[in-house]
């Protein structure tokens, strides 16, 4: 990546090294990327610090007033600055529900990506490094799963888990079930990429050298091969985050995701959709807009990262 050309001295300071790298140069040269990074950062920040950032706490029944229900956004005739984006049927502030909703969406998204990354990269490393029957089994499993679209796999796992869980646990466990379902639905992509990259690295001299001096295979895989295959995996993970957020929203929209008591962006859109025909468009359109903006900015970052890490396009 940031290979140092021969003859120049490498700046010692980490900050200098980052500012001096090719990646940073290509980042700062692309205004679209900078903007999407800022937008994504705002989302992450607001989601992480939701209780402090959100103007209201939409899930504290004590602060809710049914008299506030269906207030339109502030710039409409009946709007008030107290609820900038209006309120829903229970008088909850839309802006606050969006902030709390992105929090749920992003928690599920990040955890699901992490989950599928751990499974996929682990199995991919094993398959690529060990080859033989391990490789055959892992890759066939990935092939079989890739025959069926990820959303359907997630839907199926989610649906079955709902049925298996006792009723009183369903709402509590919904988030974990979602993470599991989305995580499992996406591992084959990581396994394929990791295996491909591992096959290339396996035959390089540093790996042979490590093997010859008797380093344990697990150690070779984790501390030598893994860092060298992380580039393409990171690109996948970035785009995977966007995908996971969409999948979560879709499942919640279909009514099998997180419950309305702890809504994600998808749940908010689903609930708001009921009021679209009676003219309360803001209840569903603002969460939709937030979802699209979040996903778009993450997608743009992923696109840029893929190009920046691809030596062919330099």
């Amino acid at each position, binding site marked *: 990546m940031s290979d140092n050309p021969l003859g120049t001295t490498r700046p010692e300071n980490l900050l200098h090294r980052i500012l001096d790298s090719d990646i940073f140069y290509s980042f700062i040269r692309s205004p679209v990327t900078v903007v999407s990074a800022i937008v994504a950062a705002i989302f992450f920040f607001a989601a992480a610090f939701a209780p402090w950032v959100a103007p209201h706490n939409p899930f504290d029944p004590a602060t809710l007033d049914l008299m506030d229900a269906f207030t339109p956004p502030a710039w409409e005739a009946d709007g008030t600055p107290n609820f900038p984006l209006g309120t829903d049927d229970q008088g909850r502030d839309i802006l606050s529900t969006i902030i709390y909703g992105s929090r749920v969406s992003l928690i599920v998204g990040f955890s699901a990506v992490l989950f599928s990354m751990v499974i996929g990269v682990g199995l991919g490393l094993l398959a690529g490094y060990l080859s033989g029957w391990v490789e055959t089994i892992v890759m066939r499993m990935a*092939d*079989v799963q890739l*025959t*069926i*679209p990820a*959303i*359907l796999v997630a*839907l*199926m796992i989610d*649906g*079955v888990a*709902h*049925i*298996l869980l006792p009723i009183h646990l369903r709402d509590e466990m919904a988030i974990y079930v979602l993470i599991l379902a989305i995580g499992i639905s996406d591992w084959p992509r990581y396994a394929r990429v990791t295996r491909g990259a591992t096959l290339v690295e396996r035959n390089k001299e540093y790996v042979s050298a490590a093997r010859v001096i008797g380093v344990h295979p697990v150690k070779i895989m984790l501390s030598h091969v893994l860092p060298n295959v992380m580039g393409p995996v990171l690109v996948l993970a970035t785009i995977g985050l*966007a995908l996971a957020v*969409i999948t979560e*929203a*879709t499942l919640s*929209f*279909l*009514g*099998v995701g997180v419950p309305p008591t702890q809504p994600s962006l998808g749940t908010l*859109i689903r609930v708001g*959709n009921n009021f*679209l*025909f009676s*003219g309360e*468009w803001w209840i*569903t*359109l603002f969460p*939709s807009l937030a*979802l*699209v903006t979040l*996903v*778009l900015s993450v*997608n*743009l970052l992923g*696109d840029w990262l893929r190009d920046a890490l691809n030596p062919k396009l330099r």
Partner: protein
Amino acid sequence: MTAYILQRVFQAVAVMIVVAFVSFLLFNFVGDPVDNMVGQEASFEDREAMRDSLGLNDPFIVQFGRFLGNAVQGEFGISYRLQRPVAALISERMPATLELVGASAILSILLGIPLGVYTGIKRYAMSSRTILTLSLIGVSLPTFVIGILLIYVFSVNLGWLPSFGRGQVTQLGWWSTGFLTVSGWKAIIMPSVTLALFQMTLILRLVRSEMLEVMRTDYIKFARARGLPDRMINFGHAFKNTLVPVITIIGLNVGSLIAFSIITETVFQWPGMGFLFIQAVGFADIPVMAAYLVLVAAIFVTINLFVDILYFVVDPRLRVERTVSAGGGE
């Protein structure tokens, strides 16, 4: 050639058996089927008699064999929720889904390929960049959000198009079609656009990147040096060679169209298989879920198989590579 096709067919059968096994497990072990059929006050003896008559006391393998036999004949039992044979329910709903998927596939191909070729050829034109940026927005718009936006604009505000259902349908034998009435055509516009948009952007981006790749090759440069007209180079030489991956993706996309039709059908309350499936998930209606899973997997596997074989027919290089590296892994 024969060996390759046989290997693929074998793989397809293996996938189907795995899927059938999963749905068999669902069928028999998620919830107690007997509980779902007898009333609360049925006695222990009644239940045992029921278990025997359903064959639930037979060995596992026997049960699985029977399930496979029934599944091959399209027999999936009775829906818990609707108390009707699952096979009848699905065949009733299938035309709606297939018409929707067909319309979307045609729409996405007719728009995606020309736009992809255009943005590939005119790489630096402002119009191409605009199309590409819009396509990225298309990828980021979840299917259901597109549907909601369309409903908001064209049904709620303008009142031009219906927001749910298939309109007036005509019965042709067992097939019900919406294409013979004006209301049917009006009803399919928004769902098919919603479903097609995402696939269209995928096809567009794929065709574009394949065109860019081909444009860099020596034989294109040579064709240019020979002074061939641009039209000839672009369509006769370049586009033709992008077709292999494009066919693959389009084939596979028909599969994902069926999967995504679940979402579109829910948004527009389109009376197809996907809507049936989602309602089944909500009610834990296992026979319908299992049947849908098997059916959709069968469709995917068939498409994959055809695409694989087509690949082989379209690209002579694959045949050569196969014979050279016969027996060597992938």
